[in-house]
């Protein structure tokens, strides 16, 4: 197990964005965080990455609690919908990731090729389309050195072909031992790509496991025949 989250909670005024969230992340797995819009997926990632304070809860790794500053060597979070350094080129952003975030220079060319960024290297990030920006952000994330990579909506803004190409690129990195924790609101995308899932609804974890494990859980809740369709399982558990 890479790390475990226990009792994570976050309130925005009277609204509970996260309530007693608990789950674990295994080394080298592709873990999907699925849930509808507003389920608290981004909030959960931001709390884990330490860019948003949580009200309660902690993370453990190797049997001991890991503080926010220590978590920085454990995981890196790529937010959705941001356009960092909009006036700078994609190529510069990748170099900055390698230099400032202590990323891996040896992966640069490979990541550029995998995410089809060669033609965009000299283009300012602020001028990129949504899909191009997403690919640039994924490249930044893939170059970072932390063992776990948290990506908020990795397929958002991508067409089918790009989504498939990126999925296979992410698989390559996962196969090398990098843990990927992906927040995905399209359950069909998640079902195709992830090894295990965490179902989040209204800030609560409704289930954690592989599709068969979640199907069994849903069946036990409703005393019905287990379905292997993740969408059905999700609806049954949330």
């Amino acid at each position, binding site marked *: 197990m890479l790390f475990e989250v226990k009792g994570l909670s976050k309130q925005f005024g009277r609204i509970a964005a996260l309530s007693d969230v608990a789950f674990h992340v295994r080394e080298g797995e592709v873990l999907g965080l699925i849930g509808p819009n507003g389920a608290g997926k981004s909030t959960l990632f931001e709390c884990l990455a330490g860019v948003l304070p949580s009200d309660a809860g902690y993370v453990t790794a190797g049997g001991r609690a890991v503080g926010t*500053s220590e978590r920085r060597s454990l995981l890196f979070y790529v937010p959705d919908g941001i356009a960092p350094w909009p006036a700078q080129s994609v190529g510069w952003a990748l170099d900055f990731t390698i230099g400032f975030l202590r990323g891996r220079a040896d992966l640069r060319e490979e990541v550029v090729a995998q995410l089809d960024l060669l033609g965009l290297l000299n283009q300012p990030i602020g001028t990129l389309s949504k899909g191009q920006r997403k690919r640039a952000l994924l490249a930044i994330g893939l170059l970072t050195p932390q063992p776990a990579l948290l990506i908020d909506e990795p397929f958002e803004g991508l067409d089918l072909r790009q989504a498939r190409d990126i999925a296979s690129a992410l698989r390559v990195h996962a196969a090398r031992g990098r843990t990927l924790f992906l927040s995905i609101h399209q359950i069909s995308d998640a079902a195709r790509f992830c090894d295990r899932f965490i179902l989040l609804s209204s800030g609560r974890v409704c289930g954690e496991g592989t599709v068969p494990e979640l199907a069994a859980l849903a069946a036990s809740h409703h005393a019905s025949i287990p379905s292997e369709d993740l969408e059905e399982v999700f609806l049954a558990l949330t």
Partner: protein
Amino acid sequence: MRSHRPPFLWLLNKECRELIVSRAWWVLLLCMGPLVGVSFISAVRTYGEVSGLNGTSAGVGEALSPLIGVWAPTFSACELAAVFLLPFVAIRLVAGDRQSGALKLELQQGMSPFARITAKALVLLAGWIVAMLIPLSAIILWKSYGGSVYAPEVITLAFGHLLNAGLTIALAAAMSSLTEHPSTAAILTLGVTVGTWIVNFFGAVQGGWWERAAGFTPAAMVAEFQHGLLRLDTSCVALVLILAGLGLSAIWMRLGTEVGRRAYQSVALCLVAAAGIYACTFLHASWDSSESRANSFPEADEMALRKIHVPLTIEAHLAPEDPRRLDLEHHALSKLRRVMPSVQVRYVSNTSIGLFEQTRAGYGEIWYSLGGRKNMSRMTTAEGVLEEIYSLAGVSPPQENDAEIFRGHPLAVPATGAGGVFYILWPGLVLAAGILARRRFK
């Protein structure tokens, strides 16, 4: 394989690039040319006229110092730019990361927020120094006219404007981190600046503690530097305020820390800064860098005053807005405090303007008390004040040394070529450099 360059250098490089692609900075540079041009050309014209240009009667120019006549007005363009343009450059650089989402990525690096804000402040100060090249280039023009330049007073003035810019940067950085949106930060920054003007106004009207506080506002600080006076207390207060502003910015940059904790840390920082400012007020050292010794008595008088060790108390019955009080303060007491830091000055008045107090018995009197002896005078000139002190101390006034008297540097020349430099050459250079640099760095 990882980069060997330290992350801080990467951050500096990034901030430099962000400054170079920032339109706000190029607008600041563009505006500096005409702003400095207007000030310099009108200052040189006035200086020339009082020196006898265009048939005017020379005479006043004989006592005119280039610091007061040319450099103070020329560099006043920096004061305008620091209030109305620099905050937007600073807000753009500090708030830009938050707006674009880059802050969320950069915070995960683990670098101390103080180091992050230091990188931004250093780059902003470098950007300001580039902007100051234009008033500094006026020195070359002045020299080409045959004008005199006394380096210590110009350096002091430039340092004052650098400190003032530091204050603006720190204020804008704090506001950018404290608020969610850059426009709110801009409003708050200008609000604080207007607040310091209100303090100045109250200081002029009310006197007392308001007057003391007004002495540490950016406008008052710059005014001292414009007279070639470098005061340790004012400079240290400015540095404490700069550090406090940058500290506040660093505290509120940490998005992952609870708001309550950030608020407690901010209060603690403000208390430490207040204590620091209070401690700075006990520093009395100052240096008069002006060639004309505008902030000092003649050296012989200073030597005579230093020999008086008995405590001196002055009680002036003058209202805060009475011009005589201003004369007394600027021409005598401010100079006296530099030589005799222990001098106690007390102002007594029932009204703020003094106009309706004129008939009151005792109004306008200045009482001197030294070693149990008392004297009264109504003179507000430096000579009058010194005479009273010497008479009380039983010291004979030193002989006036003619060689010491500042004779001024009259120069009756028009500002030839200045319009071309400041209105055409500089804006042209800025535009060309801006286009090239933005292309190169984008």
